[in-house]
Structures are given as structure tokens and as C-alpha cells.
């Protein structure tokens, strides 16, 4: 793979998504919601820091996922619809380079959007408590990792289905991914056939709760090196699996 070419596509995708008015609306709204957590905190009884942390980190996750659903699922579709894909794929660019370039481009956008939201969250938190627990940084990092993983999911779906279907499927993966523990519990109480199906779902779908460090922030419990390593390993492994699958599908696409 040619890294210069990969970078050119990544940067182009990043710039393209930055032109999307929806992105600005979502980031702007997220920042407002996080700022509003200051009000929500002030009406709580001695729980203001906790409310701000819960409210802001959840808002950050929700808005980053909305960006993934709405922009991620459109990335390849728009290229095909507008025929700009001809401009790239008729040049010495492999299908995998194009696909990965789109992925990294949106990851860069999510990173920037996430950092803007995180900055607002940290400002609000500091304004209220005059301190920022280290765990908050880990929680923010884990939220961004989760959004990146779901970007790979949305890109995979969008390589063989419409943007709307892709958004619905990605949302479904998010729900199942956050309900992994419930799926496992259900499987243990189900009939043998159902148990097999539910266990299959448990192992096949990403366990997004691994990225949930939001509760730890309240108690300022920073993850240790092993936990961070496992989260990173899980993220890299699962995302690589999704990207390999996506590239395999995209390689066979005709335009």
C-alpha cells in the first residue's frame, strides 16, 4: 500500500466531511448540551460533578455516534452517486487504499469533533469543580475509540447497502454491542438452540461496554495499564476484522 496515496485520500475525505453542514450542527449542538450540563449540575443536590460528568460524556458519545451514522454511511454512497469514485479508482489507487482512506478520513473528523466536545466538557467540569480527574481523559479516549469502531461498522454496511439501511444496521450493532452482558445472561437461561444463537450474537457483535469508562470518572478510577492495553487490543483487533471484511466486499464492487 502506498502511504502517500492513503494520506491524500484520508485528507480529502477529512476536508470533504468538514464541508458537511450537518457536522457543524451536531458538534455545535453537542457543545451546547455539554454546556447545559452546568445548569443540570447546579440543580442537583451535591451531585453536580457527577451530573456534569454523566451528562457530558453521554452527550459526547451520542453525538459522535450520530456523526458516524449520518456521515459514515454516506461516505462511499456519495462517491458513487456523484461519480467522484471514477476520479480516484481510475488512478493507481487500490480498492483497499481507497476504502481505508475513507475510514481514516472520517476517523480524523470524529477525532476533531470529539476533541472539541471534550474541551467543552473539561472546561465545564473545571469551572464547577476546579479539578479534572485523570479518569475523564481515559473516558473521552474510550468514547472516541468506540465511535471509530462503529465507523468501521457503518463503512462495512455502506459498501453493500443503502445509507439508510446502513445507518439502521449500525444503530442495531450499537444497541446489541451495549447490551452484550444482557445477551450473555439471556443465553444462559435460553433453550439449547436459542442459547447457541445468542452466544453467536454475543461473540460476533462488538462488546461496546468495554469502552464504557464513564462510570469510573465519577469515582476517579483510572484504568490500569492492563485494562488500557486490553481495550486498545480489542479495538485494534475488532476494527481490523471489520476493515478486512469491508475491503473484501468493496474489492468486488463495480462502478
Amino acid at each position, binding site marked *: 500500500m*502506498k502511504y*502517500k*496515496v492513503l*494520506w*491524500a*485520500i484520508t485528507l*480529502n475525505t477529512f*476536508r*470533504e466531511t*468538514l*464541508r458537511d453542514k450537518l457536522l457543524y450542527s451536531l458538534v455545535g449542538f453537542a457543545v451546547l448540551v455539554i454546556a447545559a450540563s452546568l445548569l443540570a449540575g447546579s440543580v442537583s443536590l451535591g451531585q453536580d460533578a457527577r451530573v456534569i460528568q454523566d451528562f457530558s460524556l453521554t452527550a459526547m458519545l451520542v453525538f459522535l455516534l450520530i456523526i458516524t451514522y449520518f456521515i459514515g454511511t454516506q461516505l462511499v454512497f456519495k462517491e458513487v452517486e*456523484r*461519480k*467522484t469514485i*471514477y*476520479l*480516484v*479508482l*481510475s*488512478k*493507481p*489507487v*487500490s480498492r483497499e487504499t481507497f476504502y481505508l482512506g475513507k475510514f481514516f478520513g472520517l476517523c480524523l473528523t470524529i477525532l476533531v469533533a470529539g476533541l472539541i466536545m471534550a474541551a467543552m466538557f473539561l472546561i465545564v467540569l473545571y469551572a464547577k469543580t476546579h479539578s479534572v480527574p485523570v479518569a475523564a481523559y481515559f473516558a473521552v479516549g474510550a468514547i472516541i475509540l468506540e465511535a471509530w469502531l462503529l465507523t468501521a461498522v457503518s463503512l462495512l454496511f455502506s459498501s453493500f447497502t443503502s445509507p439508510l439501511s446502513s445507518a439502521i444496521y449500525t444503530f442495531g450493532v450499537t444497541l446489541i454491542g451495549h447490551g452484550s452482558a444482557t445477551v450473555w445472561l439471556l443465553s444462559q437461561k435460553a433453550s439449547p438452540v436459542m442459547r447457541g444463537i445468542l452466544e453467536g450474537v454475543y461473540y460476533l457483535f462488538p462488546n461496546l461496554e468495554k469502552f464504557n469508562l464513564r462510570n469510573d470518572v465519577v469515582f476517579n478510577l483510572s484504568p490500569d495499564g492492563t485494562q488500557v492495553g486490553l481495550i486498545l487490543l480489542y479495538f485494534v483487533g475488532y476494527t481490523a476484522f471489520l476493515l478486512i471484511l469491508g475491503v473484501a466486499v468493496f474489492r*468486488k464492487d*463495480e*462502478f
Partner: protein
Amino acid sequence: MLTIRNLTKQFYQRTDEVTVVNNLSLTVKKGQVFGLIGPNGAGKTTTVKLIAGLLFADKGRITIGGFPAGSLEAKRKIGFMNENPQFYYHLKAREVLEFVADLFEIDKELASKKIKALLKEVGLQDAAELAVRKFSKGMHQRLAFAVAQINDPELLILDEPLDGLDPLGRLDFKQMILKLKKSGATIFFSSHILSDVEEICDEVAILHKGRIIAQGAPKALVKSSKQSLEELFVRSIRNEI
């Protein structure tokens, strides 16, 4: 330069199998301007997309300078201008060319010089800093022509390059293609406008329902059939129907 042997491409429409390109064979020699002509739906664009590696052949093979079509080596040798070219709306004309130069891994300094020269050549030097979304159809075509030449291609593939242009634009465009022809460029171009093909091409092939039904130098075809290229085209197609 370009060799196509027994090329077949089928599409599936619901339960039907439609053969769009049917056992097509042709050769484009170095320095030749080859025109693929045919009515709408003859299979011209499909053939062009197969050459550019955007579609995959069901049967047969295409080689460009000895490399299979769709391979990175083959793509490095071609300049491709598709029908109704579109660009990223967020880019300016100069940025589009810079982006494509990056895809070819052309050195920044060299790319910058080339971009200036190409924009001048296609008459877009004053629109270099204009966003592509503000471009007219003719400007899109011109920019696409510049994009197709950024890598000094050994084979230039133009799909309906004069389609939808006003008379002045067509004249300008034809002159640009003829200038390239004079410089010894190898060009494969598809069109349904016979006068253009007759004026520009060394050899033409008439494509109908995915098959070549007549092929040769325009003058030789006219001479041997004792009819104009337009008459030959219409008769060949009617006989096939």
C-alpha cells in the same frame, strides 16, 4: 498499447442476463487515435469502464502496455476522462489537480508546474482558485481533460468528451485533442458524434449491441463502402436490427 481480446460483460437485470459487451476484440497501436462509435446503449461506456478498471470482465482480457486492465501498473499508464465528469465540490480546480497528482505520487514541485501548464492549456488558468461546484458543464469537461493528462499518460481514454458542449466548446476541445494527436499521443475515445470521430480518429470501430460491426480507417471505410461514415453507421446498425 491497448489490446482487448474476446471481451464479454454481462449485467443482470432482475432475472434477465443482458450482454452489454459481446466477445469484443480490438487493438490500439502506439500513437494511434482510435474511435469507438455507436448509438446510445451500444456498450461504449461499459467498454471504457472495463479498460479503466471500474468494471470487471466476465470473459476475455484487456492489457494496457502489457499489464492487465485494473492493475496499478496499467492505471499508471492511462489518463481517464469519464462521461459527465464530476469532482469533489469542496475543492478548487487547482486542488483537484493537486489531489490527482498526489494519487500518482508526482513530486509537489513538478506537479505545481504541470498544473499551471495544464490549466493554461485547457483555458482554466483564471478559474484555478474557483470552487469546482461553481463550474459550468464545459468547465468540468476542460478540468477533466487536464486531470486526464496530469501523469503524461501513454494512453488517453476519453468517454464522450464532446458530449453536451456548446459549438465553441466543442471546437476548442477538438483542437486540444488534435494538438495531442499531433504530439504523438495514443488516444482511445468513444463518441456517438460521427463528424468528430471522422475528423479526429485514425481508426474507428462501430459498436452495436456490444459487438463490433465495422472497423477501419474512416477514409478507407468511406471509400470501400462508397457512402459517408454517417450512412455506413446508420446502415450497419439498421442491418443489424
